[in-house]
């Protein structure tokens, strides 16, 4: 399989509803599950088809993301005999520049060069906001077996699993062949009566030649190179598009609530095993660490921790990242505590998301709800009196 696929990760993803967590980082760099970032999941999927290189397109500087990816060697994306991570920062997509003069830089050229210079025969497009663990080797086999021009990954979900005004799309299948995609709709346009839908997971595989043709169309019409647009171009050209059904764990990370829920989902063993143990091993940037210490008085009930924590308090239904300290008498419930945060004595946190490096002073109390967890921005300090000194 090696060297057959050229993956393009479109990480220019809408992050407005994830603020303040996305104030300074793209969706792909969002911390998840004690020790990961969302980008780890597509990258780990890629290890299943042994790709030697990948191209990334991102809107900001990508600092937090590149710091995590480094050379890409964790996922086998670094080799002295070709390959590597090709990064393209400061990409502005048309959708975000409405009304202003369109600047695309070398957007189309960058896609063209990455694909045309690659020895690969196929192109794979994916993003990072569909938290999942897709077996791409199986997708590839399906694509070949169906002799499909284009194959798109989807999952059957309930209407309520995504936002009502979701920016994502639902696929419609042919009446004669339930695997053949004949159209799509914006989820926001669906009527409430439709209970189930086939979510377009925005993962697409197609051969190099077809991709280059579709890319040419995108450039000509000045449209973004997204799975949605490429499906439309393929339909316009009467290409055969097959849908590959994914049945593993999926969460669309589109707002704070879905982000919170995805983390909490991992505390359920079925979800945890489905995401981490049923498909590709999930790899992340290796970090040096000491084991986590649980003190004499600590009381833990259904919680996950990364290494390097020191826990003396009570933790229930919570996801705790690296280097977090929780003092005696503190109580953390239904919360996500990111790296380097410090929770002093007698603090009470319930339905709270602490971004990195938040300091919660002795006796402080924060209580959100499951629909509206309280999000505390990076580097903030929370005082017992309820004052919050904002970080970023």
């Amino acid at each position, binding site marked *: 399989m090696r060297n057959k696929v050229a993956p393009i990760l479109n990480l220019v993803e809408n992050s407005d509803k994830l603020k303040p967590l996305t104030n300074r980082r793209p969706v792909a760099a969002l911390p998840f599950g004690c020790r990961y970032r969302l980008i780890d999941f597509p990258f780990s999927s890629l290890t299943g088809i042994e790709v030697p290189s990948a191209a990334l397109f991102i809107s900001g500087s990508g600092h937090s993301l590149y710091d995590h990816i480094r050379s890409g060697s964790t996922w086998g994306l670094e080799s002295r005999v070709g390959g590597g991570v090709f990064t393209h920062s400061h990409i502005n997509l048309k959708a975000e520049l409405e009304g202003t003069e369109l600047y695309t830089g070398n957007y189309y050229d960058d896609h063209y060069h990455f694909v045309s210079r690659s020895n690969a025969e196929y192109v794979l497009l994916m993003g990072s906001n569909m938290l999942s663990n897709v077996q791409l080797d199986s997708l590839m086999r399906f694509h070949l077996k169906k002799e499909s021009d284009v194959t798109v990954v989807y999952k059957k979900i309930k209407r309520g699993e995504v936002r009502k005004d979701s920016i994502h799309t639902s696929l419609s299948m042919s009446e004669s062949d339930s695997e053949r995609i004949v159209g799509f709709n914006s989820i926001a346009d669906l009527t409430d009566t439709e209970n189930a839908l086939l979510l377009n997971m925005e993962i697409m595989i197609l051969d190099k030649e077809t991709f280059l043709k579709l890319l040419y169309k995108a450039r000509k019409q000045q449209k973004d190179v997204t799975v949605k647009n490429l499906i439309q171009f393929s339909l316009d050209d009467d290409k055969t598009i097959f849908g590959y059904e994914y049945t593993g764990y999926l969460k669309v990370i589109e707002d704070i609530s879905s982000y919170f829920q995805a983390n909490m989902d991992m505390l359920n063993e079925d979800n945890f095993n489905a995401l981490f143990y049923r498909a590709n091993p999930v790899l992340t940037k290796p970090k040096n660490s000491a*084991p986590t210490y*649980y003190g004499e008085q600590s009381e*833990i009930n259904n919680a996950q921790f990364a*290494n390097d924590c020191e826990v003396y308090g009570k933790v229930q239904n919570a996801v705790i990242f690296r280097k977090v300290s929780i003092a005696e008498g503190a109580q953390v419930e239904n919360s996500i505590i990111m790296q380097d945060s410090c929770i002093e004595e007698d603090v009470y946190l319930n339905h709270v998301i602490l971004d990195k490096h938040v300091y919660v002073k002795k006796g402080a109390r924060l209580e959100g709800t499951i629909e509206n967890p309280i999000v505390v921005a990076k580097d903030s300090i929370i005082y017992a009196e309820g004052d919050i000194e904002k970080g970023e």
Partner: protein
Amino acid sequence: MKTETVAMILAGGQGSRLGKLTKQIAKPAVPFGGNYRIIDFALSNCANSGINDVGVVTQYQPLILNNHVGNGANWGLNRHDGEATILQPYSSMEGEKFFKGTAHAVFQNIDFIDNKDPEYVVILSGDHIYKMDYQKMLDYHKEQEATLTVGVMPVPWEDASRFGVMNTDKTDRIVEFQEKPENPKSNLASMGIYIFNWSRLKKYLVDSQAKDRQLTDFGHHVIPAYLRNNEAIYAYSFEGYWKDVGTIESLWNANMEFLDPEHELNIRDRKWRVYSNNPNTTPQFLTESANVSNSMITDGCYIAGEIEHSILSHSVKVGKNSYIKNSFIMPNAVIGENVKIEKAIIGEGAHIHDGVEIIGTSDTIEVVGYDEEVGGYSDEK
């Protein structure tokens, strides 16, 4: 820039006093403290001391050890101006190069050291738990204009007869060496850490090889030979935590001490980190039925039982209603349900089936070996 110092970590020892724990792996590769192998301490000391050229001399059961050390990248030792190199015995025109002793192991690797052409060679053992700045010892070696400096540690007088003991004069110059003496004249124990001027040591080793091949061990042969020739040998006194974990008892003890959050080793010190080959695994999952106190747990663990005053290395599974106390569980061990483990060391990848009890006594520590299976259905009749 010329290489000033090369460190040689002698990691070939079998560690036979660790019994079944070293049946499949060399002692320096034995897991320690949840996230480490014993050799990590010496390797991290080299990295933190700015010694970037490190030879790791292996011999006995080297596969896991070699795999663990790799090219030294995890310790930052894969630099353009330095590297970690695994040195294994090999055969050559002069015959097989298996190592007959610590000094002989260095003799066999003269080519490796000469290739780096260093001024000094630091000889280290791969089986001690400690944090030490070798650079400070090297500065001392230069100040004293020594040809050999020996790292020593004051030990309680009653224990001194278990060590190689250095008698020094008022200037800390070593005047006598006693190997495990009945009546020690000093309580300065050798830590097995030596700094030699390379050209001088090489001459001794080469001359001995040509003559009578007597210099095979540093403690038994090289130091006495240096003393006979009135070389400038100085003692460098180390104060701090240092533990030889060569026995089941000391390995268990060192791990139990390691649990103390106030431990002198200060494993969470960001300025002097102990690096290791960290596995890429899932977070620690403590379920509703888990109960954990005064314990260290590592990534990849799944805990549904009760853990008290114990260290669980990475990727250990503990089933419901199981109880683990005062024990050290090595990586990838699987412990079923209703298991009781007390005062024990459970080897890497061991499988303890449901309902088994493994309980040490006041004077013995129970040990389950590498990949060993205890309990469960047996196919044998």
